[in-house]
């Protein structure tokens, strides 16, 4: 407790320092969002911001914040405000600063000073080394603020002095003409602003915590929280954007009322009933046709439904059976090891490799062309490892007491599995299957190679599997032409839209809008599976905790 003598227990007298640091963190956040807004051109780099040219304003802000952050370090170093810094800012921070400054050095020495590759290498390494030692050698309060403040001040001065003005651009000379790149101020400056505001914000958060363990804690938490917020923001933005773009095309021309919808015939044992839908939703109920106003994705929805059914029928019994054998019957040894490695390898095998396998092995064995059944089996193989893994996890999680209690009643092992283990593991298995189905329902690459055919399919040419089983006297005795011909599915339909590009084709007025509509329907189907899967898991988990 050597430091206890010169640091007071109550840190009330540091409030000014802490307030300034907190304001700096807030300013860094503002600056970050200004940079973000500039990337999507909400803030114009060539225009004005707060009465001054945008780059001047940003430059002023950066310089101020750079000076403030450097000031925190110096004030703390001179002992004007009591902080408890460590001896060094640490190698991780030093490495990061060395990287950032090295990059700047390399670019400045090669391009601005025109010293070529060797000069750039030397300049980069030199400046990187300076930044490294400036971070690692001095006490923490100086080491983690000076390089950060200098970075912000450097970019600020570059903008203020007009070295990078609104019309600035730079094309690296060693790129060939056919692959040339030009960096404009409008595309590079926002990223420089965002990067330096992150660095400055981190350093200010450390200063706010008074450096040392508490400062590091605050600085790191700031970045980790930002990261989590960014991930969720990206997710929300992605989904919202697809909904925004696709909502119009999907909901076009919906009618509700008795007798407006298409007619479905339900036939059973010779009797048939015509049911007229009370809703007409053209995008979901139409196919592609020159004679309808609104082109829809009905055949693709039917195709995706059949694919999912086929894959589940194949993979779920296989996967659950394998999981039963592995957890309940097999002795843990070489065989179970091999199976485990094989399932994990299958799980990480790229989908396109499954597609190649389906094309080489399954397609020629069912029909001379791509076929629905080849797609079903390929997707089933992709679903299988996921079912095995999740079912196994669920069965391992069943407590051994359950098994022992059942065995003590004198029943056989299979009866124990059937009446004790499987019911207890069922929630986990069901959740895993639902999430897995969500994954394969959006899978595109294997379908290109095994199943997809036709770019815009009419409603009449959808896969009609149920009514088309045919019995015959020659092998293979049961055939179904619908299973052995190519069809479409939602993700495949979207791929066709990309292939078609833009414009008008096959009765589709605006292909891009149709694509957004298809993307929204596909996203809706997949996210519905995920929502149900996650909700099931939460439901069973809450039941388990309260039991």
């Amino acid at each position, binding site marked *: 407790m050597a430091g206890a003598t010169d640091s007071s227990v109550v840190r009330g007298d540091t409030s000014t320092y802490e307030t300034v640091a907190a304001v700096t963190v807030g300013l860094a956040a503002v600056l970050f969002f200004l940079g973000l807004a500039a990337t999507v051109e909400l803030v114009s780099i060539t225009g004005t911001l707060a009465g001054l040219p945008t780059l001047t304003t940003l430059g002023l802000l950066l310089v101020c914040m750079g000076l403030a952050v450097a000031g925190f370090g110096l004030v703390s170093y001179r002992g004007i405000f009591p902080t408890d810094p460590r001896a060094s800012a640490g190698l991780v921070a030093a490495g990061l600063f060395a990287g950032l400054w090295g990059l700047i050095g390399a670019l400045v020495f090669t391009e601005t000073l025109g010293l070529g590759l060797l000069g750039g290498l030397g300049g980069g390494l030199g400046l990187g080394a300076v930044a490294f030692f400036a971070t690692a050698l001095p006490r923490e309060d100086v080491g983690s603020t000076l390089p950060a403040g200098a970075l912000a001040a450097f970019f600020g001065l570059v903008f203020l002095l007009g070295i990078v003005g609104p019309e600035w651009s730079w094309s690296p000379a060693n790129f060939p003409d056919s692959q040339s*790149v030009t960096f404009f101020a409008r595309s590079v400056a926002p990223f420089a602003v965002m990067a330096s505001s992150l660095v400055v914000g981190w350093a200010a958060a450390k200063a706010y915590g008074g450096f040392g363990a508490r400062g590091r804690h605050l600085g790191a938490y700031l*970045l980790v929280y930002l990261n989590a917020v960014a*991930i969720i923001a990206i997710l929300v933005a992605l989904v919202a954007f697809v909904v925004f773009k696709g909502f119009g095309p999907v909901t076009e021309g919906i009618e509700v009322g008795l007798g407006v919808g298409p007619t479905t015939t339900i036939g059973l044992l010779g009797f048939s009933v015509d049911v007229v839908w009370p809703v007409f939703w053209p995008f979901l109920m139409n196919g592609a046709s020159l004679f309808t106003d609104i082109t829809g994705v009905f055949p693709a929805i039917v195709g995706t439904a059949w694919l999912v059914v086929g894959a589940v029928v194949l993979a779920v019994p296989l996967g659950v059976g*394998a999981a039963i054998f592995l957890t309940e019957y097999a002795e843990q040894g070489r065989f179970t090891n091999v199976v485990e490695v094989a399932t*994990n*390898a299958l799980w990480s095998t790229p989908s*396109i490799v499954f597609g190649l396998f389906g094309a080489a*092995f399954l397609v020629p064995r069912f029909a001379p062309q791509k076929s629905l059944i080849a797609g079903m089996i390929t997707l089933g193989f992709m679903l299988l490892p996921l079912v*095995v893994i999740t079912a196994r996890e669920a069965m391992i999680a069943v407590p051994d007491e359950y098994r022992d209690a059942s065995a003590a009643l004198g029943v056989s092992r299979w009866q124990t599995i059937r009446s004790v283990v499987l019911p207890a593991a069922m929630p986990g298995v069901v959740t895993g299957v639902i999430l897995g189905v969500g994954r394969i329902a959006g899978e595109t690459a294997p379908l290109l190679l095994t199943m997809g055919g036709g770019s815009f399919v009419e409603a009449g040419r959808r896969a009609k599997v149920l009514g088309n089983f045919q019995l015959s006297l020659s092998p293979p005795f049961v055939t179904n032409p619908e299973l052995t011909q190519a069809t479409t599915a939602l993700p495949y339909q979207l791929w066709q839209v990309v292939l078609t590009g833009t414009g008008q084709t096959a009765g589709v007025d605006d292909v891009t809008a149709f694509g957004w509509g298809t993307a929204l329907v596909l996203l809706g189907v997949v*996210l519905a599976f995920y929502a149900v899967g996650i909700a099931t898991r939460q439901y069973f988990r809450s039941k388990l905790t309260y039991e």
Partner: protein
Amino acid sequence: MATNHQRDPDGWQSRLASRFARFAEFVQDTENDAVAVGALGTVALLGAFASFLVTSPYTSVFLAGFLAAVVYGWVRHQELAARGVTLAMTVSTVVILALITFFIFYEAWPILADRSGTVFGVTVPGLGMFTTTAWNPATASPKYSMLPMIQGTVLVTLVATAVAGPLGVAAALFISEIAPPAVRELVKPGVEILAGIPSIVYGFLGFTVLSPWASDAFDLVGQGTYLFVGIVVGLMALPTVVSVAEDAINSVPESMKSGSLALGTTDWQTMTTVTIPTAFSGVSAAVLLGVGRAIGETMAATVMLRNTPTVAEPLYNVFYGFETLTSLIAANYGSSSGLQKDALFVAGCILFVSVLALSIGSQLIERRMDRKVGGVE
């Protein structure tokens, strides 16, 4: 077991003999009709597999025979039937992996044999596909080089790893150590849903929004950059990294963390000095798996790239995107035949082998971590 093996050079023979003896005993102890049905079912299943391999229409007959055997066994000897059927299902997962391996190499073999090269007098199949840089199937002497696609895959994977690695590990730390329970219940499903968004939807977004923006912002010739494909693919690999890294971090015993906290450290100090070092191997396995996902990601790359195999110059030029191994297959399979189609299978082999190596490597690392953490407890 290894030492036993060294002491007894013909150990496998005696092991085989004892296995046979056990099997014979099992047959002796089991009722005759059960053994007969089991044998019939096994033969029928093998027959179905063999006739499917040779594309015989009689596959359905064998399959019906197998089903009949299973139904009979289920009614009369449920215990044994269940055991046998689940064993067959387990074996099928291994068989599927073996079939994938065999068939993609089998289909790739013609061009590998055709483009063999000689190094120090040894003939290496397929070497000719790695000594030039041109992919040009439409000329009189077609050239099938894999190098442009390998460059593309490497660049995309590097960018994707730079995105998914740090962000994924930070998110995993957040979910398992930092977030309050209510926030965790929001972020965790969010990350899972990020994995659920189909790759073609990511690709469509990239194709209609990101690529045009990038071409405009950097004044590129045409559309398609490895940089933005890498960022999108990194976003798609992120959930894999998060979930595996989270498992690894969760498996660090609570006692170790509590011990550290009891010494008066901050949460962050505990994470950097205890949690992350202990979970390090598991976290690196997570990043490896994320790299595997990034290598194998297909549709986003196919949709956003130019699909004209060319080497980007200079080699680090991430602002131009031509072709990756995955997009080569997806974009060209429909219109290719002969040697070109075989070349696509070579791309598939490269993908399969590299991802398999990453998968097995990360599993070995994870097991080591399990042993280590288990030993500490």
